[in-house]
């Protein structure tokens, strides 16, 4: 009985958020355009030499992905907060963990997954070899959910605050440095032909930790901000 209710709640919120996201196409597409633009700036500023670009392309892709996801995280709770529906969701007797997880998953599907697809398309433009591109794909697959999870903490803490986007970036960036370190070093290792399982395991561990703890922090952040 309760399991059915939790699943029901989860899927209801997930589909609602997905529907809202898909209908609001500019918010879906703009971060991707931003991502491509940031990536384009590097060849223009460093020079089009293949060797130089190849060396730093994993770093470029990851930094651009982090920046792009920072832009999208602002919307995760804002509209629900402004029209009051978030308050109703928190007040409802349902499990806060489920609620928050559904919203985060929806955000990842709307912001993270398109980004991953975009990277796969952008890879050849940065002269990434196939094996490195494959590793980059794995690191993004493990890393972008963490961006959504940690981003949701900052989004919950800063909703309704003036210039919240900037503040979110300040809160998120120091926390996701480990992600950047492991991901980029995994891809660099792949380019040198070294094994990458160690880094991928670390990324998976960070993902599991974030999945376990972040929703609790997000839910308490929402409760605190709504009790104002």
């Amino acid at each position, binding site marked *: 009985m309760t399991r059915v209710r939790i699943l029901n709640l989860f899927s209801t919120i997930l589909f609602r958020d997905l529907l809202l996201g898909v209908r609001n196409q500019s918010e879906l597409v703009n971060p991707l355009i931003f991502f491509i633009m940031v990536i384009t700036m590097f060849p223009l500023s460093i020079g089009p030499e293949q060797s130089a670009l190849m060396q730093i392309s994993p770093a470029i892709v990851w930094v651009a992905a982090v920046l792009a996801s920072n832009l999208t995280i602002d919307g995760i709770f804002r509209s629900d907060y402004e029209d009051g529906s978030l308050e109703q969701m928190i007040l409802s007797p349902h499990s806060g963990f489920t609620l928050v997880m559904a919203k985060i998953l929806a955000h990842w599907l709307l912001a993270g997954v398109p980004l991953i697809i975009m990277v796969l398309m952008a890879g050849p433009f940065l002269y990434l070899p196939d094996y490195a591109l494959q590793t980059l794909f794995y690191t993004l697959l493990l890393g972008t959910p963490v961006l959504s999870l940690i981003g949701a903490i900052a989004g919950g*803490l800063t909703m309704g605050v003036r210039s919240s986007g900037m503040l979110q970036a*300040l*809160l998120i960036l*120091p926390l996701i*440095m*480990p992600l950047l370190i492991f991901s980029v070093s995994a891809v660099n290792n792949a380019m040198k032909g070294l094994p990458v399982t160690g880094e991928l395991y670390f990324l998976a561990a960070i993902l599991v*930790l974030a999945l376990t703890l972040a929703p609790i*922090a997000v839910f308490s952040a929402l409760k605190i901000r709504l009790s104002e």
Partner: protein
Amino acid sequence: MWKWITKYASPMHFYLLANRLTPWFGWSAAVLFAVGLYGAFFYAPADYQQGESFRIIYIHVPSAWMSMFVYMVMAGAGAAGLIWKTKVSDAVARSCAPLGASFTFLALATGSLWGKPMWGTWWVWDARLTSELILLFLYLGYIALQSAIDDRRTAARAGAILALVGVVNIPIIHYSVIWWNTLHQGPTISKLDSPSIHIDMLIPLLVMALAFNLYFAAMVLIRARMEIVEQEKNSKWVQELIVDKVSV
């Protein structure tokens, strides 16, 4: 013991206690600073390799220790505020952030000043330096969040969540940075914490560390008092306090 704690969890009693304790902490910090600095400059012998410039460690090392200690105090006070909803712990947590950020900045700045003659550069992307820099970013994020939220209680509780998330993350950041650095290059630069330090050098260092702790205690009490007075400015005891001060 429990009764004592609950008594000083009330803002008024905490204020009065802090008022009485501040001069003790402040003056003993001043005395220890004087003793420690004298020891640092005259008692401790010059280092056989680094000469006189090693003496900056008497500022650098205590501030680096404090930078981490203050974060733990901030997170601990924040957690206490979340669990028991005590206003005093909120005030303490909020007061810690600027102090911690200053200690972190001081550690980075003195390290940089020392690095120029010793390593020949102001900055290296060494694991310790980088994780200290990220710690500074964490403090600055906390301060930015505090200034963005107008309501003090909400700001303090939101900050507590951020500080606790930071506490979970600090070990991960620290070890990932070490790992990142060792992947790129071996530890070519000898670290400050070489296994042995001469006892004559160690004593002033410990005195300075104690002085830094007492200074922090005095400062955090002063700041927390101001926080409490601002937070409780409509309560009766604060009004009476102000009237007393004015009439005296």
